[in-house]
């Protein structure tokens, strides 16, 4: 499979909302306070109001369900969603939970972003499938997003 770099997305997470034990697992919603993205074909910031609805499953895998609006530096709005999975050795996941910086190669953190926009300049985003690798930093995740060619 061939990939092409699309952008780096860095987001800052606000105070999490611990919904708790629900029928599918343990649900925690992470409001996204701010963020920015940058790539050769688009750059800009994340608008307030975004969030990541996470669910820790019984098998220890964290499911991520991110929804946000991106605003490019030339004022186009892009609706972005991404489903992802995060899991790893218990000691690595515990270090992440303590807010430590962890080498992202020691755990699995992958997502599949999708985009929708009405802006003709960015319409190519409507017609691609992407994959991302994540790096969970103490202040929030950094995603490297690539287009699947």
């Amino acid at each position: 499979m061939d990939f092409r770099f699309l952008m780096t997305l860095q987001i800052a997470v606000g105070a999490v909302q611990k919904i708790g034990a629900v029928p599918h697992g343990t649900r925690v919603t992470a409001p996204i306070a701010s963020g920015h993205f940058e790539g050769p074909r688009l750059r800009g910031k994340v608008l307030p109001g975004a969030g990541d609805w996470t669910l820790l499953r019984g098998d220890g895998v964290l499911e991520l369900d991110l929804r946000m609006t991106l605003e490019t530096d030339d004022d186009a709005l892009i609706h972005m969603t991404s489903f992802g999975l995060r899991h790893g050795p218990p000691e690595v996941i515990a270090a992440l939970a303590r807010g430590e910086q962890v080498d992202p190669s020691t755990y699995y953190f992958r997502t599949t972003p999708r985009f929708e926009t009405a802006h003709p300049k960015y319409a190519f985003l409507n017609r691609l499938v992407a994959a991302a690798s994540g790096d969970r930093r103490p202040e929030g995740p950094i995603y490297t997003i690539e287009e699947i060619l």
Partner: protein
Amino acid sequence: MRSRPLLTLRLNTAPVQDIGATPHGVRVTFPIVGGLFEGERLRGKVLPGGDDWTIKRADGVIELDLRITLQTDDGALIHMTFQGIRDDAAAGAPYFRTVPRFETAEPKYAFLNSLLAIGIGEIRADGPVHLIEELL
């Protein structure tokens, strides 16, 4: 990003159900009556009863929404879904890419529950074929 082959999936479809123009686009459902899948770590057949619910958007891109059950050659059942897009107007060649997901209760195949995958689809004379790789 790196990936490695997971399986090749061949689907047999019945005559399509042309639902027609709906608010989101032109909806066509492809019943899946069978098929085969094969990879280094799993192989078997596709059980009848699945479908691919497709919708052609106003921009010409077809969105895919598939649900099927796989049965491995050692009797495990795997729930598989994918969403994807097929853009026959893409520059060069058709762009047909999917994001499959798997759910199984069988410990031998539990690795499928914790991976993300991507697929390249092709329409061949005898039906669609999907080359599915695990995101590493």
